[in-house]
């Protein structure tokens, strides 16, 4: 225990000069973004759970209209895309730009697969006349998944940009954003699609 404390104290700070953020790895500002996004989604998830108390039948009946298998497939796709992004960071750490670009391309391609599945899901729901104003559940469904979808699109743009302007900091920052998108979906999927 004492040895572990000693090791922790001796380890140099990843970002010296950043005050309380000095102890975070990667770009400190990305962590500020990650924390703020997590707080926003936490508030929405809490509100969703709170409103479900008063409208349980509506929420459960509406949830039956979603496709949890498509959501599960998208979870697997996004997790694998996250792995590729993490491998891209490792590759750029070895200064292997070619391999880094390959992993980024893989992460990007799987991100596109996520989008295709999501668009098909939206088309199916809208085709059934299920709109954001249909009921409270669908307001939250479109709001939360739509907000997340916007992050996926932004993340794809970021991955494309850093694959072009490749550097260790750029790749690490884009990968951190991509993992945040991953993290939010990991929380969103069971709350919206599965818990009943």
């Amino acid at each position: 225990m004492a040895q572990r404390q000693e090791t922790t104290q001796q380890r140099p700070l990843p970002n010296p000069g950043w005050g309380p953020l000095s102890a975070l790895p990667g770009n400190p500002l990305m962590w500020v973004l990650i924390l703020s996004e997590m707080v926003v989604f936490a508030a929405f998830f809490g509100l969703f759970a709170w409103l479900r108390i008063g409208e349980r039948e509506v929420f459960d009946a509406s949830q039956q209209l979603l496709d949890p298998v498509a959501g599960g497939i998208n979870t697997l796709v996004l997790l694998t895309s996250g792995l590729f992004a993490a491998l891209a960071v490792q590759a750029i750490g070895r200064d292997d730009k070619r391999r880094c670009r390959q992993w980024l391309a893989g992460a990007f391609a799987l991100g596109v697969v996520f989008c295709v599945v999501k668009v098909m899901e939206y088309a199916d729901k809208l085709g059934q006349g299920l709109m954001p104003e249909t009921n409270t559940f669908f307001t939250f469904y479109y709001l939360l998944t739509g907000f997340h979808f916007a992050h996926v699109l932004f993340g794809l743009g970021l991955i494309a940009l850093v694959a072009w302007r490749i550097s260790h900091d750029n790749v690490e920052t884009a990968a951190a954003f991509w993992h945040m998108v991953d993290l939010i979906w990991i929380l969103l999927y069971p709350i919206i699609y599965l818990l009943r």
Partner: protein
Amino acid sequence: MRTPLATLPSPTRRLLITWAVLMGLTLVTMLSAQLGGDARLQALPLWSAGLLLLSTAFKAHQVLMTYLGLRDASAAWQGAFIGLVLFTLLLVASGYLLAQLGS
């Protein structure tokens, strides 16, 4: 005889193991949510809802620690991020339980 996984550098091995665990837990989550047949029309048993939220918490922990590299951050930051995930899931679990009790 060393397995192909054992020949990989330690950080890569850790990433691959984490990925495999995350994929496995996602499948467990889907199974525990009983997506097939008439079971989908029923409310989840309490154990199943609990398993779902626990595996979600563990997956979020793994993404933070390994994918995002929070393992290298200070204990205070680790606690802040993991605490926020747990708080979120606690909110959801409380709402879920209250809804079940109210029906």
